[in-house]
């Protein structure tokens, strides 16, 4: 798309110049008018070529200061040429004096009409810019929608694939699980064999976790929505990961707003999202840190949405939302990896720590709730996860 603002700086420079630019512009126009006057006087006032030169500073003044500028320049031009009128009258050539009066009137007319034309062009230019802005916004929205569609299609095919793979992998896992249980009995307490069996058991459980993640990912098609408060679900999730939090010596700051409106939520699924996010935060702060969880309600503003630094899809300024924020003081995420965080099987965790499905499952759940989830690094260090959820329709008008 051509950038309409490319020449905006030049146009703005010549629109109603102020300050030193204004002084320079007015001085130039006045000098131009006086110069034309000198030429007219010097040639005896009959050389119309020089007289017509007066239109130039009038047009320039109208271009710079619109109707007021054009009229003022015309008046000054008329006054500069005024002494010729009585001179000609005294010389017995009254029609020339009348001509000068008429000429000043024409100057005025040209100044005012030109000024009005520039004002009209201003309005058209502003409208063009507005249309351009709207077009640019629509273009951006279209691009975002296209990206979301591509992502949705990608996720859908991954979901189908995941379901198939999960089913096929579960059978051999079941064989292995029953096999090592059998071997554990057959080993008759042989320590070396039992050690090997335990390692195999751990490996099976890891594989099973991945498969469960795949099944979760491929299954979330429908939600069991009930209008309910969000805070208790967050508190339950915090309680469920309490052990991991304490183990890593992490302090928790909970700033849950007591006046949140109820939200249509699938209790279990939303709890799973918060557990995933808390576990991610804990993994990012091994050895200690601070986990902050906050909820609030707000009418979205453009400033807030810009602060999210990511397209927020279905949300726009003025929307009533419930916001949940989870902050950690960990190492943050490399900027080039942030865009991939929600891709299935993408993980920044060490091998064995994560399946790479937690965030993609979480986003799927949030999207099924018609919500939004975004992750960004905090300036102070660590990561901020933001969730936007729509409160119950009824509650929008009641508060």
């Amino acid at each position, binding site marked *: 798309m051509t950038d309409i603002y490319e020449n905006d700086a030049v146009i703005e420079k010549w629109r109603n110049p102020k300050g030193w630019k204004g002084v320079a512009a007015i001085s130039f126009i006045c000098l131009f008018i006086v110069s034309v006057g000198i030429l007219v006087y010097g040639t005896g006032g009959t050389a119309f070529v020089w007289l017509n030169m007066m239109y130039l500073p009038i047009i320039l003044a109208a271009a710079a200061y619109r109707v007021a500028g054009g009229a003022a320049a015309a008046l000054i031009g008329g006054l500069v040429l005024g002494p010729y009128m009585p001179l000609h009258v005294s010389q017995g050539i009254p029609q020339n004096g009348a001509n000068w009066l008429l000429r000043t009137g024409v100057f005025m007319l040209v100044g005012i009409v030109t000024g009005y034309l520039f004002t009209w062009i201003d309005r058209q230019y502003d409208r063009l810019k507005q249309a351009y802005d709207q077009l640019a916004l629509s273009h951006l929205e279209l691009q975002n929608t296209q990206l979301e569609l591509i992502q949705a299609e990608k996720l859908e095919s991954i979901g189908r694939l995941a379901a198939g793979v*999960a*089913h096929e992998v*579960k*059978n*051999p*896992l*079941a*064989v*292995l*699980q*029953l*096999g090592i*249980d*059998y071997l554990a*009995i*057959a080993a008759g307490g042989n320590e070396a064999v039992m050690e090997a069996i335990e390692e195999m058991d751990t490996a*099976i459980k890891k594989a*099973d976790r991945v498969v*469960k993640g795949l*099944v*979760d990912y491929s299954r979330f098609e429908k939600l069991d929505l009930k209008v309910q408060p969000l805070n208790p679900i967050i508190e339950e999730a915090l309680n469920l990961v309490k052990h991991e939090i304490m183990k890593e010596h992490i302090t928790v700051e909970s700033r849950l707003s007591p006046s949140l409106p109820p939200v249509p939520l699938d209790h279990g699924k939303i709890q799973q999202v918060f557990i995933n996010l808390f576990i991610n935060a804990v993994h990012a702060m091994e050895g200690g840190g601070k986990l902050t969880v906050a909820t609030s309600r707000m009418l979205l503003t453009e400033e807030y949405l810009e602060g999210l630094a990511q397209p927020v899809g279905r949300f726009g300024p003025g929307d009533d939302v419930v916001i949940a924020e989870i902050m950690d003081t960990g190492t943050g995420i490399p900027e080039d990896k942030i865009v991939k965080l929600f891709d299935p099987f993408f993980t920044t965790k060490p091998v064995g720590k994560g399946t790479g499905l937690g965030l993609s499952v979480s986003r799927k759940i949030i999207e099924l709730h018609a919500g939004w989830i975004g992750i960004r690094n905090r300036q102070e260090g660590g990561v901020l996860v933001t969730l936007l959820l729509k409160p119950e329709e009824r509650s929008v008008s009641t508060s």
Partner: protein
Amino acid sequence: MKRILVVDDEADLTHMVKRGLEVTGKYIVMEENKGKRAIATARQFRPDLIILDVMMPDVDGGDVAAALAETEEFKNVPVVFLTAIVTEEETKPTGSFIGRHTFLAKPVNLKNLITCIENHIGA
């Protein structure tokens, strides 16, 4: 000894269930890898409990269970679905009733499988 019929198209799985259960000395296990032959094998084996897969290439496990329930001789024989279509979170590790039958999620460990069997037909 209790008699267990295991019906699953995965021969490795039925074989491992047989090994695992029989090593305890409490069970006699018969394997069947064709869903369609499940009822015929049951008639021959007379099981106390049937472990049944849901998704089998030749027949749906649910249809097999329905056919068994309509049979006078097997209508009271408990059926445990051992399947990949449910997760342990949904069924609990030792299985839970969904509809008329007990479901166990694959992969199940031997201890939980035995607990599930004992819940139905005793130790």
